[in-house]
Structure formats: C-alpha cells, structure tokens
C-alpha cells in the first residue's frame, strides 16, 4: 500500500473542504473494495477521507412514496431492515446477495455505487428500480449516473448522501454469482410498475446497462414467452478467465427470464 494522509472529518463541510483541497483524495466508505485496491497498489490516493464519523449518512426511512437509504448504510442494514423488506423487498434481496455476511457488515450502498464495479449488485438495483442518487450538489437519475466501467457522473468534489427509490411495482433480482468472488457473472433486476425496466450487471463491457429490447417486449406482454428469441450480443459482453462474452450474454438472458418468472408467479 502506498501511504496517504488519513482524515476522519465529523462534518460533511469538513469532508468537502478536504476533498476540494486535495485533487488526489479519495473517499473511504466501508472500504470493502477500496482497501483491497490500495493493498494491490492499484490506487494511490494522496488523502483518504473516512466518512464514518459524519452524522446523518447512515439510515433508512420512508419519505412519502420514496424509500431513502443513506449513503453510509451498510448492506447488512438494508438486508435486515423491516422497513425495506416491507416497502421494497427486492432491495433487501439484492443486499443479501452481496459478498458474504462479514463483507455486508462493512460495505455501504454509497461506496458500491460510487465505485460502479461492472459486476456489483447495487448498480443493477439503482438502474432497474429507477433510483435517484442524492449528492451534496444535486439529484442524479440512475439513468444518468452510471457512465461506464468504474465511472459515474459524480464530480471529483461531490459526495453521495443518499439513494432514493420509488415505492410501488414489483421487482425481482436474479444473480449467477462467481463461486469464488460472489460477484455477479450476470445479474438481472426486473421491475414491473408503470413500465418495465430490466437492468443487467456483471456482463456488459461498459458496466451495468438497461436491456431495452427486453423491456419493450415485456411492456407488451409481461411473460417469459415474450422474451423468446431475444438475445444479447456476446461481442459487447465481458470475456475473461471466468467466462466468455457469449456465455455471459446467455446467462444474462437466463437470469432475466428467471426474474420475470418469479414476478409472474408472485
């Protein structure tokens, strides 16, 4: 690990000041990706700003027709929240499939989406459930937030405060985890509400994406049969030692059909 200056500000203002003053600074949330990255010397921030002591960033509440999850809320909090399980059960389902229990005791939703790993679970939840990402500066729709591989719309001096999800509709998340890392080889979040949204993670070369052809087919006829003949192109999917692009394209289709089948049955 390269060395860095460690900061643990107790106000958001102080965190923003430190972030603005140090171009090469990085924010530390749960650290379940960042610390591994630092250990491998794949990142060398000048300053690490630990968000753990800033009040108000952790917690879950229902505000009107929105479920608001604070950026520092851990996966275990979401997984076990009665509020989430009642108001938006699919989100608890997604959280419960991230990593393993010890990782879920540290990892946070804000950290996960700001990192935008192409195989992470929360990006699919945010995109599939049409979430709004609330920062210290603005509100960003999920459709505009996930820009590319490990890239988001966040500015260098911007901090995620919360993620807001609309309530209503039905969702299901199906994931084929890599048995070693538990990251998604392919994961599909299907949501049926005013319209239909299908978000695929783990597969796309540019990270999470909406499978619009599937959405259109399902909007006309919400059934597994409606997806017949629809296939993603393996050329646009990740190919690595764990599986080829064609394999991931196929898996994404299977996960989507399983998610649709579960919503139809419920």
């Amino acid at each position: 690990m390269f060395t860095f200056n460690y900061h643990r500000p107790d106000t958001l203002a102080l965190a923003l000041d430190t972030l603005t003053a140090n171009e090469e600074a990085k924010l530390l949330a749960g650290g379940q990706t960042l610390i591994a990255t630092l250990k491998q010397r794949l990142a060398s921030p000048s300053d690490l700003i630990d968000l753990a002591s800033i009040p108000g960033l952790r917690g879950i509440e229902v505000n009107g027709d929105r479920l608001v999850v604070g950026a520092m809320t851990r996966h275990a909090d979401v997984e076990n929240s009665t509020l989430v399980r009642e108001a938006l059960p699919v989100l608890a389902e997604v959280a419960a499939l991230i990593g393993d229990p010890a990782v879920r005791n540290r990892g946070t939703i804000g950290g996960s989406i700001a990192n935008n790993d192409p195989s992470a679970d929360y990006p699919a939840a945010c995109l599939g459930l049409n979430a709004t990402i609330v920062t210290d500066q603005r509100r960003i729709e999920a459709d505009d937030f996930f820009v590319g591989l490990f890239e988001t719309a966040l500015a260098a001096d911007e901090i995620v405060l919360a993620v807001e999800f609309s309530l209503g509709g039905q969702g299901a998340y199906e994931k084929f985890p890599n048995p070693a890392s538990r990251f998604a080889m392919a994961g599909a979040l299907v949501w049926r509400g005013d319209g239909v949204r299908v978000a695929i993670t783990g597969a796309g070369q540019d990270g999470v994406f909406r499978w619009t052809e599937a959405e259109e087919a399902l909007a006309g006829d919400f059934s597994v049969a409606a997806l017949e003949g629809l296939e993603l192109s393996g050329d646009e999917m990740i190919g690595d030692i764990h599986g080829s692009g064609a394999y991931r394209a196929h898996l994404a289709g299977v996960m989507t059909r399983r998610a649709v089948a579960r919503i139809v049955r419920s």
Partner: protein
Amino acid sequence: MQELSLNVNGRPVHTSVDVRMLLVQLLRDDLRLTGTHVGCDTSQCGACTVHVDGEAVKSCAVLAVQVEGCNVLTIEGVAVHEVLHPMQEAFREHHGLQCGFCTPGMILAGMDIVRRRGHQLDEHTVRAELEGNLCRCTGYHNIVKAIIAGAQAMGSPASVAAE
C-alpha cells in the same frame, strides 16, 4: 503515524500506528494476538474474521485507524478465563477442526450467525451463512454440526446465566 485508542478483548489499547496498517496486522504484529489468521489476504477466506462492536468483519479488509474507539473481539477473548465459550466447546466436541487454521474465523463467524439468526439453526442456514469462510481441509460437515450445537448451547440457561 496516527494515534489510536480502542478496546481489544475488553482491555484498552493506546498505540500509534502507520495509517496503512490493517486491523489484522495491528492484532497479530503489534498486540501479538496471533490467533487471528491471514489466509488469503483478499477478504475471501474468512480466517481473519474478528468482531468489531459485536459484528463479524474481515480484519484484512479494515484499516486499524478505522476502528478508533471500537470494541474488538478476537479468538483470544472468546473464552472466559479457562472456560471455553460454548461455540469453542462445540467445535471441540464435534471435531469441527482438522488443521485448525480456519477455526478462529469459523468460531467468530459462528457466533455472528447466532447473533443474526438465533439459536435454532438448520444445516442449510449455516452453510449459506458460512459462504465467506473457507476450510481448506474441507471439514465443513463437522464445522456445520459444531455451529448448530454451539448456537443451541449459547441459548441454554446455563450459558445465558454465565454471561
């Protein structure tokens, strides 16, 4: 260097650490609590599992400076004096270890399963909950039996009274 104060196994620790130091390095190298093991060092295997404020975490994926003010429990703090914790006793009774390398992490993960899922556990639940702890001897069968028995013992009146 960064000043650091925390509690480890009920004892206050005041020290000064390099900001890059991992929690597992603090425990093993500075405090000489070598019961916490480093298996993969990539937060996959769970040999380094300890409790921070009562919850299981992988101490190879946490910086020492992040646990400022926290209560850390390692395998050395699980037994009360010479009396094994019910989860440790269950591992002994059910032969829940072969080489023993994964055992400290397994026991702390097992205690965390009880915290979250209660005292009446079934095999399916324990196997699912243990996804972050690997045993290279593949001794899972007895580990699972031990955790189910340990969970029950932790809920027995004698165990509750002792705490």
